[in-house]
């Protein structure tokens, strides 16, 4: 009896394992191309870049070892320090402002307003525009003698000042305005989808309890939107780290060094300045925070099986 039950148990155990193996095989086969790409690009190329950062490569990569010289020069360079400061300031403000404005736009559209699809297109439209175009448009609008400042002054408000791009202290905020304008539409679209996914019963229940609408949004709906917020933050953060074209189109990094960014530092040194070694050292420094901070966070949110 015991034996039989054992054998039946073991046979029951074997069957799912076998079918599991089959599944695994096909899964492995299916993911081979992805694994090759991931290994080839993300591991080998990144490792190669890191190796190059310890060499004296000029326009072409070579293996003349110089140890930490490039990092020494990098962290001794005023331009790099400014770039890092700019990236942090810009990154934090950009993500917060995009989340806020995207959420507010989504809430507005969620009120069953008239011409909703029209508004939706209007809000999402900037996101369809390339960052280069965005940069150029805002550069013109912030031009002191042609743009918004000039128009308002001509309307009679002579002391009006709005030309952030020509002032080293405010130029980064000028870039920020353009970037938020471009990206908050994306957040709006994600948030709106999230809001529409909230069960109507919850709204009814909350209304019956007499909770004011703003409180429902803040204390019930927002916590439910957590996955949407995480997706938005990941997408926005990717945009922050690689911000390059917007800077080139809008300010060229100026005035002075005021709007320089790490990605621009890397590209400038790889190409125009023919210093691959230094560029790769900078690129490696850009990779570090991703590995140290964002890596574990993504692992926690996506990879690790959720506790039930």
């Amino acid at each position, binding site marked *: 009896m015991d034996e039989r039950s054992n054998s039946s148990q073991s046979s029951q155990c074997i069957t799912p394992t076998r079918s599991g193996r089959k599944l695994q095989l096909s899964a492995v086969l299916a993911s081979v191309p992805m694994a090759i790409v991931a290994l080839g690009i993300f591991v080998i190329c990144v490792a190669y870049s890191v190796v190059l950062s310890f060499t004296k490569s000029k326009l072409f990569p070579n293996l003349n070892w110089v140890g930490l010289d490039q990092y020494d020069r990098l962290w001794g360079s005023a331009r790099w320090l400014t770039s890092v400061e700019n990236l942090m300031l810009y990154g934090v403000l950009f993500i917060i402002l995009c989340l806020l404005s995207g959420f507010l736009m989504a809430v507005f559209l969620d009120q069953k307003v008239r011409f909703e699809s029209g508004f939706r297109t209007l809000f999402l439209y900037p996101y369809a525009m390339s960052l280069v175009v965005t940069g150029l448009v805002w*550069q013109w609008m912030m031009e002191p003698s042609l743009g918004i400042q000039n128009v308002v002054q001509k309307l009679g408000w002579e002391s009006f000042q709005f030309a952030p791009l020509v002032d080293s202290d405010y130029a980064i905020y000028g870039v920020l305005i353009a970037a938020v304008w471009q990206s908050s539409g994306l957040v709006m679209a994600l948030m709106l989808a999230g809001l529409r996914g909230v069960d109507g019963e919850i709204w009814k229940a909350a209304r019956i309890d007499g909770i004011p609408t703003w409180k429902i949004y803040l204390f019930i709906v927002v916590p439910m939107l957590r996955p949407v917020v995480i997706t938005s933050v990941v997408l926005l953060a990717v945009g922050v780290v690689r911000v390059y074209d917007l800077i080139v189109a809008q300010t060229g990094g100026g005035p002075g060094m005021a709007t320089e960014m790490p990605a621009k530092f890397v590209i400038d040194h790889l190409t125009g300045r023919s210093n691959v070694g230094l560029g790769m050292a900078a690129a490696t420094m850009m990779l570090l925070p991703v590995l140290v901070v964002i890596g574990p966070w993504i692992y926690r949110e996506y990879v690790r099986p959720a506790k039930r």
Partner: protein
Amino acid sequence: MMGKKIGMLTLALSAVSVSVHAANVEVIHWWTSGGEQKAVTVFADEYNKLGGDSWVDSAVALGENARALTMQRILGGDAPGAAQFNTSRQFEELIEEGLLLDLTPIAKKEGWLQFIRPTSVLDPCMKDGGIYCVPVNIHSNQWLWTNKKVFADAGLQEPTTWKEFLQVAPKLRAAGVIPLALGGQAWQERHLFDVVMIGTTDKAFWSQIWDKKDPEAASGDTMRGVFETFGALRQFIDQGSPGRNWNDATNMVITGKAATQVMGDWARGEFSAANLKADVDYGCIPGPSIKPYLTLAGDAFIFPKTDDADLENAQFKMASMMLSPQVQAKFNNAKGSLPVRDDVDMSLADACMKKGLKLLENTDATFAPANVYITADTNGQVDDLITTFWNEPDMSVDTALTIFAGIIDDAE
């Protein structure tokens, strides 16, 4: 259905392979202003007139962006047919790695070494006896462009030295015009710095810094004077300067909003495109300097190596076209630069061009620009320093001198 599609595809492919005989040569350059576009159109039209191959224009605003794109595409294996560079060390590694087409066969046939002058413009093209670029013009950088009417209305003399400029500028501002039109892009600030440097020192000092890379001279009193004069100019520009393009700054002089601009002789193309007359409507002062000097810089085209024989033929044809006497005359008249050969008809030269030609005849008055001596990396470090110094008046001259001497000391 599927068979039909494949048939169409084959048809399309065969059509492509038939038309391969005539090559499309993509040319990357940074000639995007009005005057520059007229000049590059001369090249394109003359090339298309030769028949067969065609000129495909890839204009990219700003030299540094255009050069970066070219480098990326060559390294990425998607090289353009031809690309513009400055006659300098910008492309030496491309030559060393054997990525550029050796133009020696055609250069020998046409005798480039005999007619290209001065020989210094061909030097950056040569490596181990091969010729790897085509210099197309000679540009001089050291010019102060003035609006004659503005000076006449204010009852002021045009300055010929930086000392005089600093005396005249406050009066111009009092008269309600912007004394100095400057485009606040890093390369233009650097350009102004170089002009101030040669204008307040001399050729020997210039070579002491850039050629001999002497850190003592780089932190000495002469250099201090250069930084001080340069810094003193900050107060004479307008608020909208940052990010402005050079041709927009030229336009401020053309329209009388600003009195002067420091720019290379390519600015003349903008004045003539606005139908202004040299030395009547606008003035050109070499320097400003006690003893005027002019750099022998210019533009050159490189031709990336290709394994497509048709494209290679088209590249040789383009190189030869760019140097033909007739095209040189037409192109340089439109561009505002000087031809690289002296046997061309320059009867159309205006008053400013004649001033330049006269200076160029005197070899004592000519010198090579900094980027002939220093690498693109070092040059970029100087750019960074100058643009920071210019935009941050808090930065002391002492700090700037220390950083500058450090860069010169590390230079290769």
